[in-house]
């Protein structure tokens, strides 16, 4: 009896392992392939086995084609991406941390409404409001500007929620009370007591805001019309659309072909991957906070 049970047990173990292994292939192989394929030539992509590793010289040549194309266009897009991300992250931090603090530790008329609106904005997918934001910024003359996109992405309700949850649960009440007794006013309290304790949530908000900003496509696509202002995700598609790199029989002399398109995609993806691997702890905390009640 017990022997039979042990036998069926290992069969199901085997099933579990193979399904998890199947998952590893599904999630892992495309990424692995992307990074390997970036080192290969166009010919090699079509004729060699799929996981052939190219040469360093080939990768460098592709990189040169990609970066020098159209007057170092992609470097300009990368610079833009950095500007948008820095601006968006700074603005979301500057607004989220104080607001989350006030919402968590003080009581004032309108507090509940702000919290509810923040939650609605956080749960509503950001794509839902892209076109209305475009219509508004168009009326204000802020479309197709750095400022318009930075302001729009600085609004980061998830950051407020994270900051609110953090200050509601992690500020030691005793410290706050004794500081107040010592004569600290609200601003001193925030700057000298709350802010130094808030490092984890600052990192958390910065992390998620960076992810949202760096990979922002739809809003940037709608707001920005001149290629000079594009960020990397937009630039990637502009590059591919103009060169036909993904159409197998592109008939032109543009030096942007499959390997260049692959390296361009790597440029878009790599910073996020690096941040992911460096900040796994934050990913986990933030996702749990976002998906479960605070």
């Amino acid at each position, binding site marked *: 009896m017990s022997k039979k049970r042990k036998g069926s047990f290992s069969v199901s173990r085997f099933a579990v392992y193979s399904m998890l292994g199947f998952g590893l292939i599904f999630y892992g192989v495309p990424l692995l392939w992307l990074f390997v394929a970036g080192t290969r030539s166009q010919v090699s992509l079509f004729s060699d086995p799929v996981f052939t590793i190219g040469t360093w010289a080939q990768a460098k040549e592709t990189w040169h084609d990609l970066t020098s194309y159209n007057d170092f266009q992609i470097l300009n897009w990368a610079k833009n991406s950095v500007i948008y991300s820095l601006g968006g992250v700074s603005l979301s931090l500057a607004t989220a941390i104080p607001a989350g603090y006030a919402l968590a530790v003080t009581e004032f008329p309108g507090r509940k409404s702000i919290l509810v609106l923040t939650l609605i904005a956080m749960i509503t997918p950001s794509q839902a409001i892209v076109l209305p934001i475009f219509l508004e910024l168009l009326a204000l003359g802020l479309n197709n500007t750095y400022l318009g996109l930075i302001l729009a992405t600085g609004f980061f309700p998830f950051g407020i929620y994270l900051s609110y949850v953090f200050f509601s649960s992690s500020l030691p009440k005793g410290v706050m009370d004794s500081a107040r007794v010592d004569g600290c006013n609200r601003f001193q309290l925030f700057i000298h007591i709350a802010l130094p304790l808030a490092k984890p949530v600052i990192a958390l908000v910065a992390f998620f805001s960076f992810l949202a900003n760096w990979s922002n496509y739809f809003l940037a696509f709608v707001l920005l019309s001149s290629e000079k202002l594009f960020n990397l995700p937009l630039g990637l598609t502009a590059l591919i659309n103009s060169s036909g790199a993904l159409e197998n029989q592109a008939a032109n002399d543009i030096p942007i072909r*499959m390997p260049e398109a692959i390296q361009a995609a790597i440029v878009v993806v790599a910073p996020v991957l690096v941040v992911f691997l460096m900040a796994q702890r934050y990913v986990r905390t933030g996702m749990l906070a976002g998906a479960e009640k605070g």
Partner: protein
Amino acid sequence: MNKTSQAGTIQVPKDRMKRRRRQQRRGLVASYLFVLPYLCLLLMFGVIPVIYAFGMSFFDTISGVFWGITNYKMAFQDYRLEEAIYNIIGFVALWVSVTIIVVTGLSLMLDILSRRVATTIRTIYFLPGAITSSAIVVLWLFLVDPLVSPFQAVFHMFGWEARQHVVNGLGMVSLFAIMSFFAHSGGWIIVMGGALSGLSREVMEASRVDGANLWQQAVYVKLPMIWKSVALMGILTLAGGLQIFVEPQLMGMAGPQYARSDWSVNQLAFQYAFSMGDFGISAALSTMLITVSVTIALILIFATKFYQVK
């Protein structure tokens, strides 16, 4: 002890009460100053655009005349809207059900592995989340091309020799569902891992002592305890899926034969604003999409206990 201190508060001198009131007022001002910068953004990019689009949806924006619900009527007369609605319903149904089944399944399986192994595997599952927006479409246009894809052996089994065969064979709905699942499910596996690790050890131990094997434990003990997280995942995935834009919009990168500019409702709204300059109909379509999303958000906030506002 308590009584004396209460008596003490009653006998607060008048000037002290005044001071306290002044302090309270100052505190109030401080709170508003803390919230003010955020409040500006909330109004400017949350509240006002919605109201603005809502208002605009009742105007003929080309000649600037109020014309009631004509924009909505015109939107519904566009045969493409019906098609787009069917497309997103199919996409959402597939993406949500695959997410619920596969994420829950994989999470329960990972839960029986040792913690370190499970964490490593979860990280690998999660990495595709780094590939977002346009890069995900670029990557998948390579992945569905049997000439270069690492999955070419699978495609050959189906007799698909060119990208067109794969795209036609899978269909747009499944293709977009696979792309979205690839990018977003890893994050949910981490969330489920968190939910599972929060379950009481005693209950697990008790069920084991009662003779439950791993399968029974997963299905009859763990699953009922995490179903709320599963439901939340389903609802948020549904809300996100209705807004699909990037994936169909970018298919044209592989060539004009793949380009679909009116596959989803969001694309249609974009088309009206950008190709036809008709902001009124665009605003009407956006208003409808927002109404659905906000309704979902309101249900989550007020009818469930997922997010608590204290």
